[in-house]
């Protein structure tokens, strides 16, 4: 390397010293960015560390006295405490359900989220079914798919209902992953 190198260096055969230089330049450069890139990747991928809450949130939704035994589904918001990154809110809406009460039968709770793509389904009073406004999935009042052309992979997700102190209606609220046939907590 002592001789003048004004000639075309790139076509010169790579000698051992030249290779060493190139190799160390690359290696040291890579080492220099290791810290920043590593820390960036860690923070970028931090969401993967957040676990899915699978046990559901037990919430009092309403009372027996305010839910008539007429078999008509009624929509209720689910208000609960929620952790959103740095904030913990004591009482915010986290979702909604349909409650339906018929004489002599247990109360039925359905998550309003359509299992196809996550839109909120509407209760169509005239047709006595649930209709998803996004892709026209339809569901019977018990939540099952009632039209073979519905794109939804499963019926509406049923939630556990408990009656406490003879009058309070409690529901174990849980969202499930959309687009799959099984009920996978999300």
């Amino acid at each position, binding site marked *: 390397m002592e001789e003048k190198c004004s000639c075309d260096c790139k076509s010169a055969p790579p000698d051992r010293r030249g290779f060493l230089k190139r190799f160390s330049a690359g290696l*040291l450069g890579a080492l220099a960015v290791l810290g920043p890139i590593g820390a*960036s990747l860690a*923070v970028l991928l931090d969401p993967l560390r957040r676990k899915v809450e699978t046990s559901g949130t037990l919430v009092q939704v309403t009372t027996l006295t305010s839910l008539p035994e007429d078999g008509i589904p009624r929509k209720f918001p689910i208000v609960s405490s929620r952790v959103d990154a740095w904030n913990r809110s004591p009482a915010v809406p986290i979702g909604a359900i349909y409650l339906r009460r018929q004489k002599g039968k247990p109360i039925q709770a359905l998550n309003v989220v359509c299992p196809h793509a996550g839109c909120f389904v509407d209760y169509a009073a005239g047709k006595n079914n649930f209709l998803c406004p996004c892709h026209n999935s339809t569901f019977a009042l018990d939540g099952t798919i009632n039209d073979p052309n519905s794109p939804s992979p499963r019926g509406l997700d049923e939630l556990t209902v408990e009656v406490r102190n003879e009058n309070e209606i409690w529901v174990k609220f849980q969202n499930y992953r959309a687009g799959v046939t099984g009920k996978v907590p999300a």
Partner: protein
Amino acid sequence: MKKADAFLSWIDSRTGYKKLLNEALYENVPGGARWRYVWGSTLTFTFFVQIITGIILWMAYSPNSHGAWESVFYIQNQMWGGWLLRGIHHFTGQAMTILLVLHLLQVVIDGAYKAPREVNYWFGIVLLVCVLGLSLTGYLLPWDQKGYWASKVATNIIAVVPFIGPALQKVFIGGNDYGHLTLTRFFAIHAGVLPGLMIVFTALHIYLFRKHGLHAKAPKRRPDVKFWPDQVLMDAVACLAVMTVVLFFVLKPRLFGTGMPGADLGPPANPTEAYSAARPEWYFMFLFQFLKAGWLVKVFGHYGELVGAIIIPGIAMAILAGMPIIGRWKLGHRFNLGFLAAMFAGAGLLTYLSYAEDRGKPEFAASVKQAEHESERLRHLAVAKGIPPEGAVALMKRDALLEGPKLFVKNCASCHRYGGEDGMGSKLTDAQTAPDLKGFASREWLAAFLDPKQIATSNFYGGTRFAATKMVKFVQKNVPAYTPEQHQQLKQVIAAVSAEAALPAQRVLDSADAALIATGRNVITNEAMNCTECHQFRKEDENAIAPDLTGFGSREWLIAIIADAKHPRFYGRRNDRMPSFAEQNILTREQIGLLADWLRGDFEIKIAER
């Protein structure tokens, strides 16, 4: 191999990348690679690091006045490697400023700013201003007390610009006062405007650098080489060295065991509590110190601030920018060198003076210590409890350990003391006229109160009207004459009364001494010590004329006496100057609760949940 080559030629024929790569890598370095040429590359490297780390920080940062500190807290304490990312961004920013100075010095000393490279020098000055702007705006973004109050000083300086100052300031901070819009604006400038400008000017800077070629420092010691790999190797070593220094500073608190690693995050910005130790970033300290100079006001009157903050720095910047022109004059280059030397010497001296002044001030150290205490406590609170939607300041306001002493200083310390101080570690000069409440209701406190030598001192009833009443006379007359048996009874009474408080610090002691306490209770109720002659204890007594000993020092008891000391349960009509804090609406019930918790040393995190 052949296929790969064919693919690369396909790409090359469509993009011409090979030529570009050749131009980038095989730039001629006249006189051989040298260490003095590395500064430009280290600056490009640090800028690249700032863009990468900045974009990732951006993904978690929330620029609003009750989310900014909170999101930075989350990055710092709850995200994977967040402390490292923020630390690298913070210290690389500082490194950039230093590298800029080194780059500038190298360019000026080598005379690289002279024709035909003037324009490129000016581009460099634009980049310098951008970096200083980034540092200034970035300092506010965490929205902690330090950044908040230091930035306020900086933006108040804008207002001294003649005629348009106030309007300019208003536009800059997005309104009349600091708030959401200050953060959104600072953030847009910090993450959008300035980096955008810098990308453009860095490109122009490198383009002109390549156009004019490297300005070789004479004499050329060695034959010419190409940029790759000779100079690149040196650059890589320099970049690695810079990053090593940055990482050292990030990890320094851990290495020396002085705290959490990463960039500092002080307590959240609180517009109602000024932070007297707020200082700008260290490389602006010379300006900060400069503005304190008395002669500015003496010479320029109320224009002192304008002259010190705008005119003089403006002239310095103008000379800096004018260096290529000045350099044409025969002695110009020498003048430029002298000017830079004088400027950096002056800035260095002012920086030193400024730190020396702060070091000499106990208030400064106390203020910093208090801020550290608050951030430490808040870190525990926020991790354990989450931050309410109103923000972290609200969380602090609900914590007895943080809020109790502040309430004590404001409402109690004009008469009472806490361990001889005001509750926050300061001595007071005015006379103490009510009891010292540190350790109130503990056995030690009660024993000192019932000590004939102490009861009439200002630590207890000495400064009150009770100095001349029954209790003091009783203690001073009867206790010295006690038989050993009576002393034993007194001890039992003290244990029993103190147990009423159920102080967290005495929990173990109280449960171990259950028998002693039970005996003490009997001693009180069977009148052996004459307590119930005036006090009521564990049963209603209409004739009681002294404070109730039932639940003495408990949370409920303390809240009640602070709320209304005039109540017959306490001092009744005999009350001295103690205000009825709840009845007179001086404090809310919640605040009184915080005071009670703090006095009792009950710092369990009690935040209303759900």
